[in-house]
């Protein structure tokens, strides 16, 4: 009798394990499908370019699926953003190095552009501050304010406020302490509020 029960338990356990293995790709697909658009926008806000952002998200998806798909689904959010944050940080480092070289070679032409009085003249057709926060312009104003933030502040804001990660998961994603996350978020919110109030 006990042998029969034990055999049934083993069969049920094996069946449950097989079901889990079948469902895992579906769960992963649903997770990536849910997160991909926000991930693309986050990368785009950091890079300022859609193509670069798509490359970063593609790399992050591939690395995440290969290395962390076997982790519990509850941890996927923080782990995916950790991979993506890593890619974004690396991209910024490469851009800084490239910018240093370019500024070294083309510093003369930049100085000419800085002194252009036509480029610095106010645009008479520029809409007023109130209309900037209506419709399309509101999105542009928010995008501009977010892009103006330092990288770590922007990541803290997007992960906590938009993505909805808690402080601990945000700290995992950003590879820093919970205290640093709170500091970055506080500064980001103050800067953003000031920038958006100026537009109103």
């Amino acid at each position, binding site marked *: 009798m006990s042998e029969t029960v034990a055999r049934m338990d083993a069969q049920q356990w094996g069946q449950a394990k097989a079901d889990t293995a079948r469902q895992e790709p579906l769960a*992963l697909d649903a997770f990536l499908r849910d997160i*991909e*658009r926000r991930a*693309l926008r986050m990368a785009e806000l950091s890079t300022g370019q859609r193509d670069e952002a*798509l490359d970063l998200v*593609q790399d992050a998806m*591939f690395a995440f699926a290969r290395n962390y798909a076997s982790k519990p689904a509850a941890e996927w959010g923080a782990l995916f953003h950790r991979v993506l944050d890593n890619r974004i940080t690396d991209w910024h480092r490469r851009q800084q190095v490239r910018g240093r070289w370019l500024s070294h070679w083309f510093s003369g032409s930049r100085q000419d552009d800085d002194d252009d009085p036509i480029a610095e003249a106010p645009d008479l057709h520029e809409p007023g501050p109130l209309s900037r926060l209506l419709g399309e312009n509101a999105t542009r104003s928010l995008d501009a304010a977010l892009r103006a933030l330092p990288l770590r502040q922007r990541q803290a804001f997007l992960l906590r406020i938009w993505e909805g990660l808690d402080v601990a998961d945000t700290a995992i994603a950003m590879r820093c302490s919970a205290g640093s996350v709170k500091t970055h978020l506080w500064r980001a919110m103050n800067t953003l509020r000031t920038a958006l109030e100026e537009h109103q």
Partner: protein
Amino acid sequence: MKQQSSWLQQARDLLDASARDIDAASLSRLNRARQNALQASVPGRQTRPRLWGAGFAAACAVVLAVVVSIPHSAVPTGAPVVALQNASSDESDLVVGDDNLEIVQDLEFYAWLDTEEDDVSG
């Protein structure tokens, strides 16, 4: 506090809207990226076996190249055994068959006869 949560909610709504309005070409690329990622997550579909296959093929090619490049003249073809192997089956029977032992014993005579014929014809 309520005012703060209000503008944060507004910011969240704007970001959600921008994510909803992503163009079709970008969504297509995202879809392809997701499919590639899903393939990478399936055990046994890694790229390593392909690398092993490529390595095996390269090793076979190197071995084949070495075998082909060995000069055939290095093999001693003058040895009696090899000469025997190179001969056709009829010639072998002529030389080593039990019925033709007399021919083997008279090889010197036949060699002399051969040179004589060459001299006469020449």
